């Protein structure tokens, strides 16, 4: 059955839909967690520490976090590999372009591939910046995420990279959520308006929620 799914274009879309929804669910939680920055460094750092103790004593220290990380890596890889293979198939299926050009489909729909690449690169930078601290602006302090976040958003490039990526995220989610519903066969005429509304609300809330953090640092609300 796994073979049938992976070999079929419809099956690969299913993989994309499921992995996309897993990442989307994570992003909602991640965004809500980020908003704790507005309640001061103690609450934000405390929340980050609690994430490491989640599931104890049943789970060892940081195990819950590592389980989430493994699930996310699997989702990202599955999503990216299927996207790459499906895109290759799509490009091969339409080798010659029309001479008479016109804009096709909505902006969000047309930017799914480039938006996805931007998001993939962003994830790499984001982890190197705020998880490992490899490319962090000045003096990464493990266990002090509040200070690290303020550092990142005190640089112009940190803000630019982050905000561009979050706008790409909004567009990606807007088309992606609704598309996932169609791929999984849960869309219908009766539900279409509801699904489109949920997609738009998710896109807007995620983008605004994430972007509010750099904006707060830039305006001095968080410092």
């Amino acid at each position, binding site marked *: 059955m796994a073979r049938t799914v992976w070999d*079929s*274009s*419809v099956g690969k879309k299913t993989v994309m839909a499921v992995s996309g929804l897993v990442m989307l669910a994570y992003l909602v939680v991640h965004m809500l967690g980020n908003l704790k920055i507005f309640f001061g460094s103690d609450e934000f750092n405390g929340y980050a520490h609690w994430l490491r103790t989640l599931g104890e004593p049943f789970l060892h220290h940081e195990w819950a976090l590592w389980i989430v990380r493994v699930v996310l890596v699997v989702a990202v890889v599955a999503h990216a590999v299927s996207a790459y293979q499906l895109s290759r198939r799509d490009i091969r299926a339409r080798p010659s372009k029309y*001479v008479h050009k016109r804009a096709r489909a909505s902006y969000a*729909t047309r930017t799914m591939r480039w938006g996805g690449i931007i998001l993939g690169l962003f994830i790499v930078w984001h982890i190197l910046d705020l998880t490992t601290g490899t490319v962090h602006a000045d003096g990464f302090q493990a266990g002090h995420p509040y200070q690290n976040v303020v550092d990142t958003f005190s640089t112009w490039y940190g803000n630019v990279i982050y905000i561009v990526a979050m706008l790409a995220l909004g567009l990606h989610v807007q088309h992606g959520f609704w598309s996932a519903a169609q791929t999984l*066969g849960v869309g219908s005429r009766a539900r279409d308006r509801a699904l489109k509304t949920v997609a738009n609300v998710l896109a807007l809330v995620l983008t605004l929620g994430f972007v509010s953090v750099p904006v707060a640092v830039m305006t001095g609300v968080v410092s």
Partner: protein
Amino acid sequence: MKLTLRVWRQKNADADGAMSTYEVDGISPDMSFLEMLDTLNEELILKGEDPVAFDHDCREGICGACSLVINGDAHGPERTTTCQLHMRSFEDGDTIDVEPWRAAAFPVVKDLVVDRSAFDRIIQAGGYITAPTGAAPEAHSTPVPKPDADFAFEHAECIGCGACVAACPNGAAMLFTSAKINHLNVLPQGAPERETRVLDMVAQMDEEGFGGCTLTGECATACPKGIPLMSITGMNKEWLRATRKAGKR
């Protein structure tokens, strides 16, 4: 009406093609697009040139033979087939671009004619029902609920012209395939092959080199018969159901 046409000319499947410019005069707004091309061809023949090859048959909008991408739109600016498109949809003095369907699975045979036999092979993979032939059975012997009959009929309207493939930026045949699957899978007559139909037809669709669906909605916008985009959702649902059932067996 006086028009400038830019038409894709290609000698055969292996030759390189290019757009050629022609002037046509004396076009009536009541002519169909194909009649306008007939007028051009008559002039070309009189001049001793090779007429433009294009597919057509019933010229009533029901057979699915005519094609043509007109100014970037499959079947042109109106939501109908090219044979039912009339020259009143254009302005006097317009320049009109005429191109063949573009897809790897639909190779150009000559000029504006493409080979659509990939669709026939998708149908052969499962677009039929197993039924005894002979005299037509009593219609009431197999009751079909009205909503199911309406749903089946909506999808049965597909004439297999390939406009969905031509319009799709991925050259996907999802709308065509889903129309055929939904049409038969909802009816009791189609029930015995419900699972094999969707699995085999989707596999054949992939085999033919069509692209995948990215839900741009271009296919449903171009479809002269108004097959809805949700048809693809229905096919995905049937495919997942059939895959789960096949996995249990």
